[in-house]
């Protein structure tokens, strides 16, 4: 039994049994959340896996090449560490070009670009055994960064892009600040994992510029409906670790009503104001101009948090 090679299978087909591979029963998990949980569970339970075989299509009437999606999750899930770099053999009777053409023509997500990266092989069903025996291309971290990630094209699939931008922004700022977030769980979206994997290439914790509040400490206010989802934690960390650990503080308001009712702005050294504060989206700028004469307001919106 070669338990270092695993194959994802459905129903009565059992090539795993036939060839002595570890059989991983596919559970019709099609959302990113479910696939994420499932692959984490697989690699926790089968720590010996060194190679994986995945049908390009998984699930009932699969028009979406869900197997490719599963493969991308393996490549982009950081928690899997070195396991995410193992050889992946996809099974389909179509060629790489046919799969990509199909995805482009039919407005599907372009998961097929994974097939054009190193460490991945596409084979016909009848060639599984040979490929499993001969294909051993594990990629390195360096190859992942320079040969795999730049070739992938993944787009945001969430309808509420604003929410994803906020989560992404909090993680990105935390990365700059050298802080591991505890109040925000890494979203399992493939797009997020992809962005997160790419970000590691460029971002290292940054040194801060001093702003003259080191002795006094920084008294800051964050007005943001997503405050509790990472932002407060990372901003507080920056204020305490880089300005004054004992005298810096961060007050939080999560809705426009509270912010509007409060008059206590004069003693703040800095105010972080979400420009798309619900329910009065896009009115925050106008409100800030009329209600506040504060000299130091940092305007934030999701996309600025994301790319800024």
């Amino acid at each position, binding site marked *: 039994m070669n338990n270092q090679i695993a194959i994802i299978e459905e129903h009565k*087909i059992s090539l795993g049994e*036939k060839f002595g591979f570890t059989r991983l029963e596919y559970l019709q998990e099609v959302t990113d959340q479910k696939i994420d949980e499932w692959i984490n569970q697989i690699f926790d339970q089968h720590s010996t896996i060194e190679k994986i075989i995945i049908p390009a299509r998984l699930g009932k009437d699969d028009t979406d090449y869900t197997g490719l999606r599963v493969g991308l999750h393996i490549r982009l899930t950081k928690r899997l560490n070195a396991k995410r770099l193992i050889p992946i053999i996809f*099974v389909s*009777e179509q060629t790489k070009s046919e799969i990509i053409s199909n995805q482009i023509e*039919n407005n599907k997500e372009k998961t097929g670009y994974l097939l054009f990266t190193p460490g991945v092989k596409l084979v016909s*069903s009848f060639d599984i055994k040979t490929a499993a025996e001969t294909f051993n291309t594990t990629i390195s971290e360096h190859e992942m960064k320079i040969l795999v990630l730049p070739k992938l094209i993944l787009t945001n699939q969430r*309808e509420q892009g604003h929410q994803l931008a906020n989560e992404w922004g909090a993680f990105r700022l935390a990365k700059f600040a050298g802080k591991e977030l505890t109040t925000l769980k890494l979203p399992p979206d493939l797009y997020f994992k992809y962005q997160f994997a790419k970000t590691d290439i460029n971002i290292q914790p940054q040194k801060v510029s001093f702003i003259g509040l080191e002795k006094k400490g920084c008294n800051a206010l964050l007005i943001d409906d997503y405050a509790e989802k990472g932002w407060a934690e990372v901003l507080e960390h920056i204020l305490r670790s880089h300005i004054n650990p004992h005298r810096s503080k961060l007050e939080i308001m999560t809705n426009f009503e509270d912010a509007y009712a409060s008059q206590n702005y004069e003693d703040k050294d800095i105010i972080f104001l979400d420009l798309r504060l619900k329910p009065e989206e896009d009115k925050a700028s106008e409100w800030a101009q009329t209600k506040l004469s504060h000299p130091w307001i940092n305007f934030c919106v999701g996309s600025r948090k994301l790319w800024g």
Partner: protein
Amino acid sequence: MIYLFDDNEFGQMSSNYGVDMLEELSNFPKLIKHINKVAKNEELDDMLKIATAIFIHASFSPSKLKDYICKKAEERHIPLVVFTGQEPTTIWDDKNPKIIRKIKKDRFYHYLIPFLKHCQEYPQESLEIRKLVFGKNYEVEKSLIIQDRLGLFLSFRTDIFNYESDFKISTQERKDLLELFFFLYPENYEIEFLNFHNRFKNQQTDARSFFIEIKNLVSTIIHIYE
């Protein structure tokens, strides 16, 4: 009448899909009606009485109303498609082939107009939401899925392949094979399939050779429909 429930709150139907979807839909006044808001319950009940299908946005509000519409569609066996921006892949109902629990919104709108054109062209056909999911090249797309599925199945049977027992009546493999013949010979697929069946019933063949036969069938389907 197909009822399309989408609140279109930010005008996405006109700006997000390359064409003005509202304008496109107006070309099919007898086939589909767009509903952005339900004013009265009576109005809704009237719609459900004559609906041939319900297409509804997962975030159609209020959510209780959306749930009610979906429930009623299910109870009355009306084809139901729930489209959403949240899920990347298509989720079919486990038991009812007339229901798609979730389909990506972009994809739904991408296929909607070709689907309506097909319905208009073939009014005698019953409305099949599978054709909405697979797009205008339904036959090609489904054939490729069957080819992948049978490829895996036959590679598993390499040393022990037996046409008669592996493609028994009521197995999924037999249904898949029959569907290929339906695409190839819509008028007399049963006769054509019987000829094929008799040929392999009496002939010793191996799994790989049999799969080559299947690939030839799929190639012919692609040639016919593309």
